């Protein structure tokens, strides 16, 4: 079976050419055949998924249609709670912890008719790779299994066609970088847009629920289903759920886009990444947008504030366990989290002050004149899994700091055939304009929507 987007699968459910159980069966077979090389899926909910698919097939036959996600399988990074399943967070420390209730996003997807197919790998506590002898896998890249898939298996699993949709925690860019490295679409919504109740906490004021999808339209449908106020999340915002479907066909004519020029010259960005982002800018301009070069600036302040907040908040959550059970952490995660002990209270408060200033600056200076920003996502294509530097540095964390929505999408391929990505950033709670540009760009680049079938031996070739 060809890899299906969420939208295409839904269409085939409704014209009778495919059923939810048949789709689940085929995906389970694909995972069994291909994931031995990718190590992206850690838990497969085979029986439950098939039973739920059968229920949803009957419901559809009875005219009980729950909408675009009806019968659609999805995967969760193993930092999101599902009642009765362990949430290990890639750590020995959490190995025996079974969730008592579903995360809010799981509730919302279930209500929308989506089917949980399983869980995918994560870095330990979504912050650092596991040690080589740890009992947790590191996801490999379907474009080249000798290369990293990013900090979780969401990008790898969607790119491999195991499901059209996967959720991940995005605290510093994990969802967007996994999508970028694997050539699919990733979203960090506005801070407050999607509830984090039932997701692992890493750094409360930076944590977002990220979404990885096969196509921009799939991402839009999932975002609509997941959005909405939740009193159980103290960061949740009372903003109306956006109508993203309407935005998808509007095109970019008349939009003003600021191309973040200084990030394209920042060492050590790979020239092919910068080139791909410039090409994306040219495509958007050709489609009718006005693209100007802009300067983000604050080169030192952004990372200083973001890392100070990240480390302090993460350490606050881990201090007790680091002191009591250091041996249960892998060395990379333990040392990364321990560094939070070096942050002083006054530095944390000052970092929050700087954050407010940076938000104001981005809002007034950039979003006062531009509807969107265009920037790189990661500094280089996926490196080898054993590369000393690990995953390439990125340009994602600034928007976890500011809370602006940011979307990562495929915009080209490196000389070695690895995906390259660009990031579209919108005003807070204006995901619709961001999706407008992403959909227009994706339509213009339709030939790029291919799957990594050659490298993993999949029967799948293109996204339908």
């Amino acid at each position, binding site marked *: 079976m060809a890899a299906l987007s969420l939208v295409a699968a839904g269409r085939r459910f409704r014209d009778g050419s495919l059923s939810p159980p048949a789709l689940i069966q085929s995906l389970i077979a694909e995972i069994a055949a291909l994931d031995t090389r990718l190590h992206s899926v850690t838990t497969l909910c085979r029986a439950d998924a098939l039973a739920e698919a059968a229920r949803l097939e009957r419901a559809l036959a009875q005219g009980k249609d729950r909408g675009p996600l009806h019968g659609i399988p999805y995967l969760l990074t193993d930092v999101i709670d599902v009642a009765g399943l362990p949430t290990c967070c890639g750590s020995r420390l959490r190995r025996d912890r079974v969730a008592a209730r579903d995360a809010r996003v799981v509730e919302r997807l279930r209500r929308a008719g989506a089917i949980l197919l399983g869980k995918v790998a994560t870095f330990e506590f979504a912050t650092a790779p596991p040690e080589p002898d740890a009992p947790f896998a590191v996801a490999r890249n379907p474009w080249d299994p000798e290369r990293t898939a990013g900090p979780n298996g969401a990008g790898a699993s969607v790119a491999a066609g195991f499901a059209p949709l996967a959720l991940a925690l995005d605290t510093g860019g994990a969802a967007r970088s996994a999508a970028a490295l694997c050539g699919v679409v990733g979203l960090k919504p506005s801070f407050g847009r999607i509830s984090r109740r039932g997701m692992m906490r890493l750094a409360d004021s930076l944590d977002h629920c990220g979404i990885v999808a096969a196509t921009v339209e799939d991402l839009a449908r999932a975002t609509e289903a997941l959005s909405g106020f939740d009193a159980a999340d103290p960061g949740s915002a009372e903003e109306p759920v956006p109508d993203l479907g309407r935005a998808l066909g509007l095109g970019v004519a008349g939009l003003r886009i600021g191309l973040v020029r200084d990030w394209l010259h920042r060492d050590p960005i790979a020239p092919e990444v910068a080139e791909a982002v410039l090409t994306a800018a040219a495509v958007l301009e050709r489609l009718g947008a006005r693209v100007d070069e802009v300067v983000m600036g604050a080169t030192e302040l952004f990372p*200083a*504030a973001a890392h100070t907040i990240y480390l302090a908040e993460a350490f606050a959550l881990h201090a007790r366990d680091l*002191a009591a059970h250091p041996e249960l952490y892998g060395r990379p995660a333990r040392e990364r989290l321990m560094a939070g002990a070096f942050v002083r209270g006054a530095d944390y408060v000052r970092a929050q*002050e700087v954050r407010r200033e940076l938000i104001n600056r981005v809002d007034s200076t950039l979003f006062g004149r531009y509807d969107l920003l265009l920037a790189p996502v990661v500094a280089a294509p996926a490196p080898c899994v054993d590369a000393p530097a690990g995953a390439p540095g990125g340009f994602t964390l600034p928007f976890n700091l500011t809370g602006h929505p940011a979307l990562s999408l495929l915009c080209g391929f490196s000389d070695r055939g690895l995906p390259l990505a660009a990031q579209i950033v919108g005003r*807070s709670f204006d995901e619709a304009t961001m999706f407008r540009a992403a959909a227009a760009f994706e339509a213009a680049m339709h030939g790029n929507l291919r799957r990594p079938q050659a490298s993993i031996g999949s029967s799948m070739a293109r996204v339908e």
Partner: protein
Amino acid sequence: MSDAEEAGFTAALAEAGLGIAADRRAAMMAAYRRVRCWSAILSRYEVPSSTEPCDGSRGVGPCPERSGI
């Protein structure tokens, strides 16, 4: 590392009840220096002094538009 840095590094670990293996000391010291470097960068940013009243535009706290940030 200066004596002051060494003292700060050791005190921070002791206060948190954290120990490190001898062969990881250099790596953790590098992390300590990075954090202190960020602190120095942040300290160059001008924050209101203790004598300034709140003017509503600065400070840390929940925001009605983006609560939590």
